[in-house]
C-alpha cells in the first residue's frame, strides 16, 4: 500500500495521540479506506479488514477451483479431437487452465491460506466452482461453444478484475486474461469452421450454441437485486461492475459475433432496443441456476468425483515425493554439516 494510505495512517495516529489497539486498528482501517479510494493496490503484508480478506479468499479460491474443474469438460474431448491441429490447440488450452489454477492458488495463498486447505474445501463441497462446468460436453462443437461463450463470459467478468484492489489477484488476472482471449478466439474459429462445413457440422455447431447460451449468461451470477456480495465487493473495488451490467455487455458483444458465425442465439425475445442502446433479451431460468448451484446440475457429482479420485489416487505419489525430499534434504544437510566439521 503506497503513499496516500501511509499519509492517512500517520495523520490519524498522530491526532489520536498514544495509540491503543482500537486506535491503531482505526488508523489501519482509515489507511486501507484511503488506499482503496485512491485506487492503490493492497498488498499481502498490508493491513486489511478481516471481511475483505475472507471475501477475497472465497472469490480467488472459487476462481482457482473453476479453472481446475473446468479442465474436465474440455479434456473429455482431447482423445477424440478430429484433427491433430485441433488436438494440439485443445491440449494447450487445458494445460493453460491448470497453469491458471496454479497462479490463482498462489494468489490465494498470499492471504494466509494454503492450496491443500483450499483443495480440501473443494473436495468436501465447502467451496464452490463456476456453475457452468456442471454441464456436459456432448459433441465436438461443445469445445468451440465453451471457447466462444464460456471463455467470452469469463473474459467479460475478468477484464475488470485486472484493476481489482488486491494486487496479487489483479496481476494474476492480467496474465490469465491474455491467454483467455486467445482461447476465446480459437473457440470462435472452431465454431466458424463447423458452421461453414458440412450440413452435419453446421447442425452440430448450432446445437452446441443452443445448449451453452443460457448457462453462459448465468455465469455473471444472480440479478443485481439478489446478489448478496455485490455492494460490499464494489465498495472495496474487488468488483467494478454489477452482474447485470456485465451480462448486458456480454449479450451486446455476442449478438454480432453470432451473426458473423452464421449461427442463431436461442432466445426469441432477443432484439435491439434503440432507446437503451442495448439488446433486450429473454428471462433467465433462475430456478435452474439455483439447482445447479445446489449440486443438482447434470454433472456436479461426476466433476467432484473425478477431482476427488485424482487426488486420492495421487496420494501415494505426493507421499513418495515428500519422503524422497525429506530423505535427500537430510542427506544433503548432513553432508554439508560433515564438510563444515
Amino acid at each position, binding site marked *: 500500500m503506497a503513499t496516500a494510505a501511509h499519509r492517512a495512517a500517520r495523520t490519524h495516529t498522530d491526532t489520536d495521540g498514544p495509540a491503543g489497539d482500537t486506535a491503531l486498528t482505526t488508523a489501519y482501517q482509515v489507511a486501507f479506506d484511503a488506499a482503496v479510494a485512491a485506487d492503490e493496490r493492497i498488498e499481502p503484508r498490508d493491513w486489511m479488514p478481516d471481511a475483505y480478506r475472507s471475501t477475497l479468499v472465497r472469490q480467488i479460491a472459487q476462481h482457482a477451483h473453476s479453472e*481446475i474443474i473446468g479442465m474436465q469438460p474440455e479434456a473429455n474431448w482431447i*482423445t477424440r479431437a478430429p484433427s*491433430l491441429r485441433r488436438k*494440439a490447440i485443445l*491440449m*494447450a488450452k487445458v494445460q493453460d487452465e491448470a497453469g491458471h489454477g496454479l497462479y490463482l492458488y498462489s494468489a490465494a495463498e498470499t492471504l494466509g491460506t494454503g492450496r491443500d486447505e483450499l483443495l480440501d474445501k473443494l473436495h468436501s463441497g465447502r467451496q464452490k466452482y463456476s456453475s457452468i462446468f456442471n454441464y456436459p460436453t456432448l459433441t465436438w462443437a461443445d469445445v468451440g461453444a465453451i471457447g466462444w461463450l464460456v471463455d467470452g463470459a469469463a473474459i467479460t467478468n475478468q477484464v475488470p478484475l485486472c484493476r481489482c484492489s488486491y494486487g496479487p489477484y489483479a496481476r494474476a488476472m492480467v496474465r490469465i486474461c491474455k491467454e483467455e482471449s486467445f482461447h476465446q478466439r480459437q473457440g470462435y474459429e472452431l465454431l466458424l469452421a463447423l458452421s461453414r462445413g458440412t450440413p452435419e457440422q453446421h447442425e452440430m455447431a448450432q446445437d452446441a450454441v443452443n445448449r451453452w447460451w443460457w448457462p453462459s449468461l448465468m455465469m455473471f451470477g444472480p440479478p443485481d437485486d439478489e446478489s448478496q456480495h455485490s455492494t460490499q465487493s464494489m465498495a472495496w473495488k474487488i468488483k467494478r461492475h454489477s452482474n447485470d451490467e456485465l451480462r448486458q455487455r456480454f449479450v451486446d458483444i455476442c449478438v454480432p459475433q453470432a451473426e458473423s458465425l452464421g449461427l442463431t442465439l436461442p432466445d426469441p425475445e432477443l432484439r435491439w432496443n434503440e432507446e437503451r442502446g442495448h439488446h433486450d433479451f429473454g428471462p433467465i431460468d433462475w430456478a435452474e441456476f439455483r439447482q445447479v448451484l445446489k449440486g443438482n446440475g447434470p454433472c456436479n457429482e461426476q466433476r467432484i468425483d473425478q477431482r476427488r479420485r485424482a487426488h486420492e489416487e495421487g496420494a501415494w505419489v505426493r507421499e513418495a515425493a515428500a519422503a524422497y525430499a525429506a530423505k535427500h534434504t537430510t542427506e544433503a544437510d548432513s553432508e554439508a554439516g560433515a564438510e563444515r566439521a
Partner: protein
Amino acid sequence: MTAPTASTAPVAALALGDDALVLSHRLGEWAGHAPVLEEEVALANIALDLLGQARLLLSMAGDEDELAYLREERAFRNVQLVEQPNGDFAHTIARQLYFSTYQRLLYGQLAAGDTEFAGLAAKAVKEVAYHQDHAEQWTLRLGDGTADSHERMQRACTALWRFTGEMFQPVEGLDGVDWEGLRAVWRKSVEGVLGRATLTVPEGPQSGAWTAGAGRQGLHTEPFGRMLAEMQHLHRSHPGASW
C-alpha cells in the same frame, strides 16, 4: 522428391511419427487425472511436444490427418511400448523413462547425421532432454520414496521391460544409426537411473513372444485397437469434412 532416400523415408517418418503420436495420445488421457496440478502441466507439456514432433514427421510421409485418422491398426508402425495403457503413475513414468531415454539418444544421432531428419531431430532433442529429465526425477522420487512407491515403481519397470528391445530394431531409412551402440548406451543410462532410484534392473528378455520388431511391422497389443477406435471415431464419422 529429389532426395536419394525418398523411397524409404516415409517408412522411417511413419515409425518415428507414430511413436510420438501414440505416446502423446496416451499422455493426453491424463488430463484432469494427474496426482498434482504441476503434473497436469508437465504431462500435457510433454504430450504437446510429442504431438508437434508427430505432426512434422507424419507430414513428411503424407497428410498428417489422413495418416493419423484413417489408417487401421495393422498399418501403424509405432513400437508397442508407447501404446501401453497408462496404468498407475509409476507405469506412465517407467514408459516415459524407457522411451525418452531412447528418443534422446536416437535424435542425438540423427541430429548429427545428414538424413532429412537431422533438422527435426536437432530441434526435438531439446524437448526430449526435458522429458527424460522429468522421467528420471520421478523415477528417483518413486523408487526412493516410500515402500509403497518403491514397490509400484519396481513393478512398472519390470512389466514394461519386455517392450524395450523393439526400440533397437533397425528402422528402414534411418541410415547411419548405430542400433547396437544405441542399445548399449540406453541400457547403461537406464541402469544408472534405476540404480540411483534403489530399483533393480529387470531381468528377462527385452521382447515378448512376438517377432522382434512387432510394432514396427504393424503387429500391436490388444489395447491399441481400442485406443485408435476412440481417437479416430469422430474423424471417421464425417468423411471428407474439414475441422
